[in-house]
């Protein structure tokens, strides 16, 4: 079974490969770290009741998530990886301090 992946490439930076490690928890959730509500509403007291749906379980009572739910979780983790990486690069470009593992969305 293949996993979602991506490849970043820039002339100045070179290549960076993004891969999924299915055993790690960040690839087992639908709730991404970088795709929450915007900081602005959180600061205004927003309680997040609009999280993504939980992964779907197979109907065979095996307590395993479906293939597509699994894919969705892995893609969520991959999206976080890409977002964090690109955010760091953006901040670098701005000459600012790198915020390690920022879990805030900045767009």
């Amino acid at each position: 079974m293949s996993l979602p992946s991506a490849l970043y490439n820039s002339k100045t930076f070179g290549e960076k490969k993004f891969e999924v490690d299915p055993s790690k928890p960040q690839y087992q959730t639908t709730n991404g770290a970088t795709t929450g509500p915007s900081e602005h509403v959180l600061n205004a007291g927003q309680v997040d009741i609009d999280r993504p749906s939980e992964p779907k379980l197979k109907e065979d009572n095996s307590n395993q998530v479906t293939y597509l739910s699994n894919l969705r979780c892995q893609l969520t983790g991959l999206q976080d990886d890409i977002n964090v990486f690109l955010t760091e690069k953006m901040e670098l470009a701005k000459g600012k301090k790198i915020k390690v593992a920022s879990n805030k969305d900045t767009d």
Partner: protein
Amino acid sequence: MVNLNKIPPKNGRKYYVALGLEGSANKLGVGVIKHPFLENHESGDLSHDCGVEILSNIRDTYITPPGEGFLPRDTARHHRNWCVRIIKKALIEAQIKDPGLDIDVICFTKGPGMGAPLHSVVIAARTCSLLWEVPLVGVNHCVGHIEMGREITKAENPVVLYVSGGNTQVIAYSENRYRIFGETLDIAIGNCLDRFARTLRIPNNPSPGYNIEQLAKKSTHKDSLVLLPYTVKGMDLSMSGILAYVDILAKDLFRGNKKNKVLFDQKTGEQKVTVEDLCYSLQENLFAMLVEITERAMAHVNSNVVLIVGGVGCNVRLQEMMGTMCRDRADGKVHATDDRFCIDNGVMIAQAGLLQYRMGDIVTDLNETVVQQKFRTDEVYVSWRE
């Protein structure tokens, strides 16, 4: 001659079923409706009387904390994260067993509205369409409101007052278009109320307008109105000046600025106007303007029937004022619907979309499903009416 039965129901059934998806602003709505297949729909203009049966009408509203509006990005996130769950809920409630067999058409809001939220719903709509092999129809949101209102109230050819967060229009049908006779020259009524509510930190749950309406009822100084600018320009109106004016009052009230002569007695420092009074005055003023432009349009097109649609349309005070106006016109009548149909919902998109579908107007290329943030009511060719 209009033939609403141009396309027969699927699988030789005697009825049509449509799924409607709406997400142009902060409400996400999914609805399933059924139209019986009726012989008399083959000729004559019966688009207001389809015998609609509502199989399900599910809505989820993105709510922000008091003082905050809804931003496109967060609204889109809400829709994206709830969309599939809401569709599923609507299908289950409608007892749809096999969407590919049971549903004739999937209707989605093409516009107008906020780009990101519209887009997040259209993604699901396209996927369903390809997955179930069911045709798609893109619907103008405003036309959705009008068609739903007509079907529910059976108002045949009313002057329509469409009032919501983003729209304020007086519309009348003529020669296959819903033509705009009057509208706001700047901001929409709902927007005006929402922004006023934000200044006073009036909660957004269930909606700022609803809360203003409840507060207004509690005003104890109804006999002495806070006079606000009244800006009717023919059949158009302007509200930005009123908002600016009332917003200063609201700010001073919120902060307790005793220097404000309208709000505080300059000698005793006593507060003369409460939040409730201000809500009352704002409603009375804005609604009087709405009723006036509606009456102007009625006089212009020689009609005596009004249909109020859109989220602000479920305000009971507005309905009551409109009713009084109609009563004073010859046999006038006002039609309105309750919050199930007034506030953005999926059923209205299904209703307008199904009419479109029955006339043979369907998406033939997915490129036609790109959402349109700006999509005027009068751009739609209304093929289903005489």
